[in-house]
């Protein structure tokens, strides 16, 4: 199927599913099947978003949140990927680090937030580090699995052709683990936005998570749903940009897809 037709098909299906959902929501509200005050209709939520944008707070909240989420995600990813390669490629490091990491992995990131606040104060650092903490583990597990299950033939042929372990690491081990790392990163994107919301509940004065909680306290469910939708769209946008970037930087990933 030509690429353009494929793209039109994809956009049509996505637009249709979102359109149907909005129409259904509007209809249920219009006919009084769902309480207008508890769950306002899309038109009211849209008006709240416009109002939020007009007073300039939407962009401020958006940039504050995306900055926190991305910095946390980047820090968590770097740590998770590095540890993943260590435990995935070194038997000794696996024996030393995995028991500790397995315990840490079981800690609910939400429960770690007070510890980060104690350590880094109520500002941005505690939010960023709580996001980083939550994103380390999906990347550690995926990098570990990806790098420890590389077909032995890849390593054997690489070692016959190159004597440099650094060359083998960068040109064989990293790319051969890439599919697994990408999957881990996508999970971490979603987790980083969940943690963003949780971290902005405590001691924040701006951000999408803050807007959701403050609107809820003010009984502005239209604004709360609007902020929730913006948060969801932001997370989808990051995921979309990441996917585009992957297609551009690693074109071979696309070729390995079954669908």
């Amino acid at each position, binding site marked *: 199927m030509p690429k353009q037709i494929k793209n039109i098909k994809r956009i049509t299906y996505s637009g249709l599913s979102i359109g149907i959902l909005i129409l259904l929501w509007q209809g249920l509200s219009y006919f009084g099947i769902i309480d207008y005050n508890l769950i306002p209709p899309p038109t009211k939520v849209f008006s709240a978003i416009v109002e939020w944008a007009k007073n300039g707070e939407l962009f401020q909240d958006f940039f504050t949140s995306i900055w926190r989420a991305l910095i946390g995600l980047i820090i968590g990813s770097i740590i998770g990927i590095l540890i993943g390669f260590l435990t995935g490629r070194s038997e000794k490091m696996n024996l030393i680090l995995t028991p500790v990491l397995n315990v840490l992995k079981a800690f609910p990131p939400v429960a770690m937030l007070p510890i980060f606040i104690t350590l880094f104060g109520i500002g941005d650092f505690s939010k960023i580090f709580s996001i980083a903490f939550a994103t380390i583990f999906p990347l550690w597990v995926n990098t570990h699995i990806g790098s420890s299950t590389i077909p032995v*033939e890849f390593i*054997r042929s690489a070692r016959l052709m190159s004597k440099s372990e650094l060359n083998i690491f960068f*040109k064989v081990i990293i790319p051969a683990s890439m599919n697994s790392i990408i999957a881990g990163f996508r999970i971490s994107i979603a987790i980083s936005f969940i943690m963003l919301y949780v971290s902005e509940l405590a001691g924040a004065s701006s951000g999408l998570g803050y807007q959701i909680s403050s609107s809820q306290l003010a009984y502005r469910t239209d604004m709360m749903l609007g902020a929730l939708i913006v948060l969801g769209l932001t997370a989808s946008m990051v995921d979309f940009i990441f996917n585009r970037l992957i297609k551009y930087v690693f074109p071979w990933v696309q070729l390995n897809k079954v669908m």
Partner: protein
Amino acid sequence: MSEFSILVKNISVSYDDNLRVLEYVNFDVRNGEFIAIVGKSGAGKTTLLNTLAGFIKFKGEINVEGNIGFCFQNHSLFYWMTVAENIGFGLKKNGSEKRVIINDVLKKIGLLDLANKYPKELSGGQMQRVALGRAIAYNPNVLLLDEPFSSLDIYTRDQMMDWVLKLISEMNITVVMVTHYLDEALVLADRIFVLKEKKILREIKVPFAKPRSQAIRFTEQFQKSKQELSSLINQQ
């Protein structure tokens, strides 16, 4: 340089204390010679090849002169690299010198126009040709082939055999190939080792002059040799 590319003395391989796969195997391979190793599944053919490449631990002595090129049964091309990048992986040269060698190999394997394709975009036969190209690109003295055509259909396999015959006649390279197909062994090899019960049961000199073509497969002598090999492998 010695007369022999490979010298193997009394090698034994065990996967653990109880499972011995090879026992006191001895042989030598002259420079430029083509050896085929045949035998039933589980006879230790691939283990012997892996031992020669230094992939697994062994007892005994192995001397391999110069570099080794290895071509795996399932090609094992790096799927994140293009055809040209795969071929250039083992080259120590840089820049234009590297490009010249890559282009030379691409011409040899007849895939110059597919240089920028990824392995997933190639057919089985093309992938196997790239794998062979990658194995010979850095000019190894010894080429080890582990059932290189086993995943191909019968027509592609015949084409590949012709291509290997041509390639080998152009290069002075020592080859050790593991195969299940007796036709392949008889068409390509100078000597055939029949592996059985952890040892080389018999060594057979192929009675056809080189350069060869696949036409020898239809001669009476070929059928006789094939029969002899087959009964050696299957005898109790």
